[in-house]
């Protein structure tokens, strides 16, 4: 078949239809290559929200991940949440050492360049601050965005050296039961982690989403304690001291402990419980009139994989399963989605996660009944967003 034969079959357009009415960015060559890319200038509103504590030094506080502006289940490195006590240290990697000492046969030191030569593992893992969602304990529903309330959680593909390899090299003494991990911020932040957990799955993280981890996330290395409260994943890791006893450091006695209804305090809490959150629609958004909406959010559990996420649009009276994106990975964020046809009336949206061990996310009522009204850490109750007839979304308790 010759092209010409078919030519008469072709629809010839009038000249007017092809006059140039292209947008201005098509008029000539665009921007040059960048050695290291940055987000579009038009997305400059997608940033971490910094909450400073103003405690006599400038950099005690947190930078919250803008969960409601993100999608998928990976947090881009520039937006990973940060909880700093005394700022991010400017560590010179070639001067930095990891010391392994205490109840070991051979105290050892490791340079960063030597650690980079060890076998590594890569895992998608969330890190969640033990104090994430602490606003949920407040008597009245706090009116803040999802990110500013629950944004002390992020997930990355972390790559690093299994700590077990290094401890085996040093030779663990039979008496050792704890590992005191110390960071190289100016406060020498330290936390005690059970040796068993360390040997099981903890890693010295060197890479985050493919590249070396960022200064505010622990450069040149951090401990990664999968599924447990984030404060244990000590940043700027410099010391691992093996011991028969925990350090009883300030942050495992005076903080990160939970006052129980009986007046005693629970110490050495570990696993972040099963949890989920609708990120869209969420507080501060406005639905543009009735019709089909995507409901989406994140679910995670420190116990393993997410098995199920249910969504309710009637404040928890009825539930339907949401779709889970890609096969869930243990101790990672799992994106869930479902569609909802909004009728323009008042509705209360909720999500409820179940993990592979059968843990089900509790209602706020059940959580408060169990833990009392002095809570601060480990808040994992179902979150309720109310959509009113104007489409405005706000935070409610049911």
């Amino acid at each position, binding site marked *: *078949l*010759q*092209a*010409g*034969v*078919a*030519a*008469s*079959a*072709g*629809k*010839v*357009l*009038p*000249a007017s*239809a*092809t*006059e*140039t*009415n*292209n*947008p201005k960015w*098509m*008029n*000539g*060559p665009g921007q040059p290559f960048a050695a290291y890319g940055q987000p579009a200038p038009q997305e400059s509103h997608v940033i971490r929200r910094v909450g400073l504590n103003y405690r006599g030094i400038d950099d005690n506080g947190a930078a919250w991940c803008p969960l409601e502006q993100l999608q998928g289940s990976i947090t881009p490195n520039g937006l990973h949440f940060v909880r700093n006590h005394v700022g991010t240290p400017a560590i010179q990697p070639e001067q930095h050492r990891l010391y392994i000492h205490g109840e070991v046969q051979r105290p050892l030191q490791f340079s960063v360049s030597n650690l980079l030569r060890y076998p590594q593992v890569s895992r998608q893992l969330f890190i969640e601050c033990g104090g994430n969602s602490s606003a949920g304990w407040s008597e009245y529903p706090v009116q803040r965005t999802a990110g500013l309330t629950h944004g002390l959680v992020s997930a990355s593909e972390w790559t690093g050296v299994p700590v077990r390899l290094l401890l085996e090299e040093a030779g663990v003494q039979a008496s050792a039961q704890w590992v005191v991990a110390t960071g190289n911020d100016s406060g020498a932040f330290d936390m005690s982690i059970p040796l068993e957990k360390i040997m099981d799955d903890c890693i010295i993280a060197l890479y985050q989403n493919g590249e070396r981890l960022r200064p505010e996330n622990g450069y040149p290395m951090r401990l990664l304690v999968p599924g447990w409260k984030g404060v244990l994943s000590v940043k700027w890791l410099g010391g691992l001291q093996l011991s028969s006893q925990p350090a009883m450091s300030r942050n495992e006695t005076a903080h990160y402990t939970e006052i129980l209804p009986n007046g005693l305090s629970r110490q050495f809490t570990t696993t972040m419980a099963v949890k989920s959150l609708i990120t869209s629609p969420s507080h501060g958004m406005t639905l543009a009139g009735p*019709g*089909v*909406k*995507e409901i989406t959010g994140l679910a995670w559990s420190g116990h393993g994989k997410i*098995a*199920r*996420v249910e*969504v309710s*649009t*009637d404040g928890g009276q*009825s*539930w*339907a*399963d*949401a*779709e*889970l*994106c*890609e*096969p*869930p990975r243990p101790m990672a964020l799992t994106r869930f989605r*479902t*569609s*909802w*046809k909004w*009728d323009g009336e008042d509705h209360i949206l909720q999500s409820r996660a179940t993990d592979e061990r059968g843990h089900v996310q509790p209602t706020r009522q059940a959580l408060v009944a169990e833990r009392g009204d002095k809570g601060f850490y480990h808040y994992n109750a179902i979150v309720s967003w109310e959509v009113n007839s104007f489409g405005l979304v706000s935070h409610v308790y049911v």
Partner: protein
Amino acid sequence: SQNKVQAPSPALVLQSPALGQPMNVAQLPAWTAYTVFADGTGLPQGHGTAAQGAQVYGNQCVQCHGAAGKGGVAGAVAGPVLPRAEWIKSTRPAHTTGQYWPYATTVFDYIRRAMPANAPGTLSNNEVYALTAYLLAEQGVIQSDQEMNPQTLPAVNMPNRDGFVRNPQVPAAGH
């Protein structure tokens, strides 16, 4: 996913919000409207000859593609047309329009959408017809006095028209 919708409540169904806005295709901007297919579909009204094209070429193309399209900073856009058996013997066989391109419509389409690279979208349809005529005539693919227009352009017998085999994974339909 391992966890599909099991018992959706009436309000929960996976569906599209259907937010596309109907439009008049006559108002499509040029960059998407001007796809020219090999059978000529999409060609605009207009016409041009090699002589007219030579002028435009000398003003707007020669600085990048060299005299007679034989190559400058941006490479050749016209070249010798060798018999395939000879062409294939070279280490790096040329991909120039007359030698390699299977459809003359593609030359028109590409020049119109992308050239001159420093100011695309500034040529009139007549200029594009003329430039196409010029490049093809330079390579002996058409007569030097043959006008290119919506009828003649798709009928050009490109030397490498039958030089391609299609990956069987894609539809056989359409040229």
